[in-house]
């Protein structure tokens, strides 16, 4: 009978992996730079500890804090006999840094061990040997976040029964290097993301002009034009910085299709406004409103680059800074030229209206592509 049941199951061949999360433990190893210590936070699933140490003494399936706490020493002993840090050829000595606590993960409660590894020196390298649970469950993994001395960002390492021993990189990617990397990415993103440039240009085209009744006149003072540019750029920057931060930090999220098509629509709107001129005085309001949506676009670009654990702030600030720099370069190149040309027929009769129409056409195409060319069944 049993045979038949398994036989039937075999014909489904569905991976039972779906039902639960496999066994993982989570470690954060943080090296201190002044002495050769490594601070360790180690989260191990209570369920795994129960399997090897039989914590559930009364066998009723409910694990109480008392049952866990009473086995504190056994848990520490078991854990520490399956994790070795060695500097050069010498093992680092373990110290318990704080009493055991608990923490909830997505798949249950974990014991949290706070430990310190006292090493002699980091000069001859640092190695980790991890062997927790491998003897009873070879699919177990140790997921390590390693923070090198003086480092901000952590590097992820995965320990499995095939890779139980690994060396730790002692050279931390410096904060400066991380920041620089994201600044560069931010600059490139605004330069290569034509939709942001065109939106900005659409708002800047009329900044050197003044609308009187139904036609455009050249602005009389540079000061006035610069003030207009400043208002627009600041509003745009402020708005997209807010939503970029909110999205990257996970407070808000919008479907990318909606974001991308609204960005395209914002370009159309801004460009057409230059022809119809319905919003003249409060262009900065438009810059702010649509800037909020552009921020979501920046956020998904940043997410695609990968966010370093532990240096999220650095990546976010760097990327935003890069976007700002890229934007300033465009403004600095465009505004003097536009101001110089503002009095010409060419600028008012041709460059601005036809440029705006071209921008609107391109952006309409993007909008149609992004909003309708996609299909989802739900």
């Amino acid at each position, binding site marked *: 009978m*049993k045979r038949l*049941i*398994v036989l*039937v*199951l075999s*014909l*489904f*061949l569905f991976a*039972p*992996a*779906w*039902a*639960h999360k496999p*066994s*993982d433990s989570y470690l954060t190893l943080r090296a201190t730079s002044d002495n050769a210590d490594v601070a360790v936070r180690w989260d191990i699933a*209570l*369920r*795994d500890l129960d399997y090897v140490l039989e914590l*559930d003494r009364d*066998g009723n*399936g*409910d*694990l*109480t*804090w*008392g049952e866990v*706490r009473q086995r504190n020493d056994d848990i520490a002993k078991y854990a520490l006999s399956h994790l070795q840090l060695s500097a050069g050829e010498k093992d680092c000595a373990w110290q318990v840094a704080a*009493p055991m*606590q*608990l*923490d909830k993960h*997505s*798949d*249950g409660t974990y014991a*949290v061990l706070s430990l310190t590894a006292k090493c002699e020196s980091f000069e001859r390298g640092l190695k980790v040997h991890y062997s927790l649970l491998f*003897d*009873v*469950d*070879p*699919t*177990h*993994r140790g997921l390590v976040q390693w923070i090198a001395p003086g480092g901000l960002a952590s590097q992820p390492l*995965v320990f499995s029964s095939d890779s139980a021993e690994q060396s730790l990189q002692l050279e931390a990617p410096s904060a400066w290097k991380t920041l620089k990397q994201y600044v560069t990415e931010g600059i490139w993103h605004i330069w290569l993301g034509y939709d942001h440039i065109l939106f900005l240009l659409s708002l800047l085209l009329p900044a050197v002009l003044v609308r009187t009744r139904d036609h455009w006149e050249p602005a009389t003072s540079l000061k006035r034009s610069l003030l207009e540019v400043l208002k627009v750029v600041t509003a745009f*920057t402020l708005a997209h*910085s*807010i939503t970029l931060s909110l999205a990257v*930090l996970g407070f808000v999220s919008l*479907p*990318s*299709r*909606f974001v991308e098509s609204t960005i395209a629509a914002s370009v159309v709107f801004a460009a057409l406004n230059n022809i119809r001129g319905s919003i003249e005085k409060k262009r900065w309001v438009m810059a702010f409103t649509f800037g909020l949506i552009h921020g979501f676009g920046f956020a998904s670009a940043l997410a695609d680059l990968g966010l370093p654990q532990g240096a999220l*702030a650095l990546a*976010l*600030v760097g990327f*935003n800074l890069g976007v700002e720099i890229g934007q300033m370069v465009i403004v600095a190149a465009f505004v003097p030229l536009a101001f110089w040309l503002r009095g010409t027929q060419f600028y008012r009769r041709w460059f601005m209206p036809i440029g705006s129409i071209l921008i609107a056409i391109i952006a309409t195409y993007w909008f149609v592509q992004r909003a309708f060319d*996609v*299909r*989802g*069944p*739900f």
Partner: protein
Amino acid sequence: MSPRFLTALLLAFVATAGQAAPFTPKSDSEVVERLPASATDPQVRRVDALRKQLAARPDDNGLRLDIARRYFEMAMAQGDPRYIGYASAALLPLEKTAPNDASYWLLHGLLQQYSHDFPGALTSLHKASELQPQNPEPVAWRAAIDMVEAKYDDALGECTRLVTLSTALLAQGCTAYVQATTGHLQEAYDALAKEYESAKPVVPELALWVDTRLAEMAIRLQRPAVAEAHFKDALGQNVTDQFLLGAYTDFLLQQRRPQEVMVLLKDWERSDILLLRLALAGKAAGDSRAADWASQLRDRFVAAAQRGDRLHEQEAARFELDVEGQPDKALAYASRNYTQQKEPRDAEILMRSALAANQPKAAQPALDWLRTSHYEDAGMATLATQLAAKGAGK
């Protein structure tokens, strides 16, 4: 207030709010974890007792195989990958000696297929058959692996072998599954339905399986009422089965009946495949719990990616496409998944993602499969036409 300052302020807020915070429970009597298999379960007690015996007699290979087998069956029944790990651990010492024992090769093959090592699994399962030609199990598993790899002639060969080794209904089910995938949907349905009628009464597990397969075929034959009746019969067997629940709730979603999905799966958040259906239903119905389901699922995919797990790619693609609205990410998952798994639903998600991401050429492997297999499915045919209109080779 400058944007820089605002950002700094925000970051400062998040730095304090986002920290994971360990805690110390207030009293010893506080229940901190419910273990999934309590020691009162006779199955668990039996295997615990066997483990203790093994500790005393580590060289007892028969005992080792018995433990591994029991853990594997628990994994199948409860869908818990830890039991797969325990089964592997029990089997591991035997790997060096690789005994001439059919049960060893069968179990070894099953564990290999679990981690998607299909060629290795087929070799092991062939070895099991050589050592024990009368056992239908390795044959049935090989048929299933051949289906995942879209090797239909091989699968049909294994189904034919099952005729003499197992019950007629099981062999017919195997054959019908291959035929339904290779352009003989109506015949496959008729033959299996007829065999099912004549074989009754059938043990609940087998009945559930046959009814699920018939329901899936009826959906593709565009007879939703018939499909519904088969699903109801399958559910009426009172056997808990995630595959059935997944297939039925997919059908309900297709029929735009998300409310029923949420009722049916209310206690199933633990299961990743069923949580995905909950998230889809919640989204379709505009339910207030939808965001929470989506965020739970997101956490699980992040965790799987962290450990380098590639077992979840088909569902990850569906999640990115239908819940998150990220077709590019969905396509990346679906393409990678299709290099290993080539069942119809793997092809379908690849086509849907490629279309949504506007990269029709990425769906080419699935389109080629659809053409050469002659798989009948109106939805997929429409997808293929749409992809072809965008420049994919049909």
